[in-house]
């Protein structure tokens, strides 16, 4: 018995030690980013690299917001991600619910076609999409980013998966009571979909916030750029200013990281629903 006890203590140390090591590897770059962002200009260009700022200061943040228009980019990112999230929620919820619970001719074939289209990488569409946006006069506008994101196949799919669990009897009873389909959707269905709404909202917000390639293409004018696009070009300008760039990375990452920490249960649930049952 004793040897088994010793053995399981050893195994427990190995398992938890490995987890501590992995967590350190995952978090250390983020912790260092935060620490360096508070250092004075030039302080981090030293060997050995300093781990903590000698005298923590907000100078880098002040410069980013005062001179490099960071406030503008932050606002652009916030507005775009919020607009995309709110609008696409409505589109995806309505479609996902209909695909799950309402019978109409061609429903299953249509849904299969949508699923099939999921294998096409989004970049294939980008060249004609750019031409379309150009002909509509939407290059360098917020609409150029929002319009293509108003609905997503993945979003429709996620809602449909979840909405299938709504009992038909509930909808039938409402119909017998004389409720119209729109009323049923808003009054009965939406409250039942609340968990998936939270999940879809955070997934969409994060994806939109972190999106890079399409905003890079359609927003060349600095005034409309999002944080990732602006940070990429700032980092080319300020190759040597490590402290400044770390502050820029903090401004870009912190909002989404905070959002994830606050709503992580909904986020992880969405991954499992979309990833495993798919």
């Amino acid at each position: 018995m004793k040897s088994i006890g010793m053995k399981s203590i050893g195994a427990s140390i190995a398992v938890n030690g490995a987890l501590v090591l992995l967590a350190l590897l995952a978090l250390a770059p983020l912790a260092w980013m935060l620490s360096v962002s508070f250092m004075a200009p030039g302080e981090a260009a030293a060997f050995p690299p300093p781990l903590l700022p000698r005298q923590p200061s907000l100078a880098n943040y002040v410069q980013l917001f005062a001179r490099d228009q960071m406030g503008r980019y932050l606002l652009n990112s916030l507005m775009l991600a919020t607009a995309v999230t709110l609008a696409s929620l409505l589109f995806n919820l309505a479609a996902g619910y209909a695909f799950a619970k309402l019978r109409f001719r061609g429903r299953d074939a249509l849904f299969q076609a949508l699923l099939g289209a999921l294998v096409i990488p989004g970049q294939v569409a980008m060249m004609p999409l750019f031409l379309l946006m150009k002909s509509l006069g939407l290059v360098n506008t917020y609409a150029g980013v929002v319009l293509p994101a108003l609905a997503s196949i993945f979003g429709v799919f996620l809602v449909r998966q979840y909405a299938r669990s709504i009992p038909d009897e509930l909808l039938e009873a409402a119909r017998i009571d004389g409720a119209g389909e729109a009323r049923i959707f808003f009054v009965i269905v939406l409250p039942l979909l609340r968990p998936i709404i939270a999940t879809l909202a955070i997934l969409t917000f994060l994806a939109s916030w972190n999106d890079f390639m399409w905003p890079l293409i359609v927003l060349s004018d600095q005034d409309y750029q999002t944080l990732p696009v602006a940070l990429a070009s700032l980092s080319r300008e300020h190759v040597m200013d490590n402290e400044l760039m770390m502050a820029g990375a903090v401004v870009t990452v912190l909002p989404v990281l905070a959002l994830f920490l606050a709503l992580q249960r909904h986020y992880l649930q969405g991954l499992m629903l979309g990833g495993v049952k798919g």
Partner: protein
Amino acid sequence: MKIERAAWGFVTPALVVIGLFFVLPVVSALLLSFTDFDLYALADRKNLRFVGFGNYVEVLQTTLFWKALGNTLYFVGVGVPLSMLLSLGAALLLDSRLARWKGFFRTALFAPVVTTVVAVAVVFRYLFHTRYGLVNYGLVWLGFDPIDWLGDAHWSMPTIILFAAWKNFGYNMIILLAGLQAIPADLYEAARIDGANTWQRLRHITLPLLAPTLLVVSIITVAGYFQLFAEPYVMTRGGPLQSTFSVLFYMYEEGFKWWNLGRASAIAFLLFALILVATLLMLRLSRRWNAA
């Protein structure tokens, strides 16, 4: 019928958006890839000509394309197994009965996934800085020579692979963890009674039952890794000596730097074909694996 009309009302807005901004552009891209759409055509559509498979032939004859393809295959071939091993290892650790503070560890290991690629790429560029980076400091401390991570054409792709593995492993970890938790505990109990050790239980119970999840996760990861772009764009601009120049980077430069939108569309479809082939290959392999 009333319900039918309502249903169309519900699906039409989403379908219009998807049709107008995805399906239509994809079909147009195919047509565009058969034309010589360039800067002149951008100015005046009259300069547009149909060139058949000309773009594809041209791209396939460019050394830069093969360079980009080689780099991308390198990234996929090494990066995906590394990410998957990390994901699987982390998931097994988190699923272990011995693990403590599971909630904390799960969140900590997942955190890199939600970060913005561009921002953490900037952080990693600094971490792997030849002179001031923390990684080289660690190497020197351990008695090794410092490495010119992002400046040496032999090390640039491995650095980007390490970065991608760090950034992405948490995603698959969560999905594999869900798969592990779905395996009935009494199977392990029975095996333990039969005297199977940890390795045998992993080999004969866990991995076979996890195989379908592993397959789906691998296919999604391979497709994602083929779309390498933001990492080299920020960390190396495709260099040094084009050692991190990817197929998507090539598409971006042809399309939006030189405005050869026809040729860029051809590159996009070549990438799409590549992903399809890789997916089919993995499905075929897994079927043979199952049959054996």
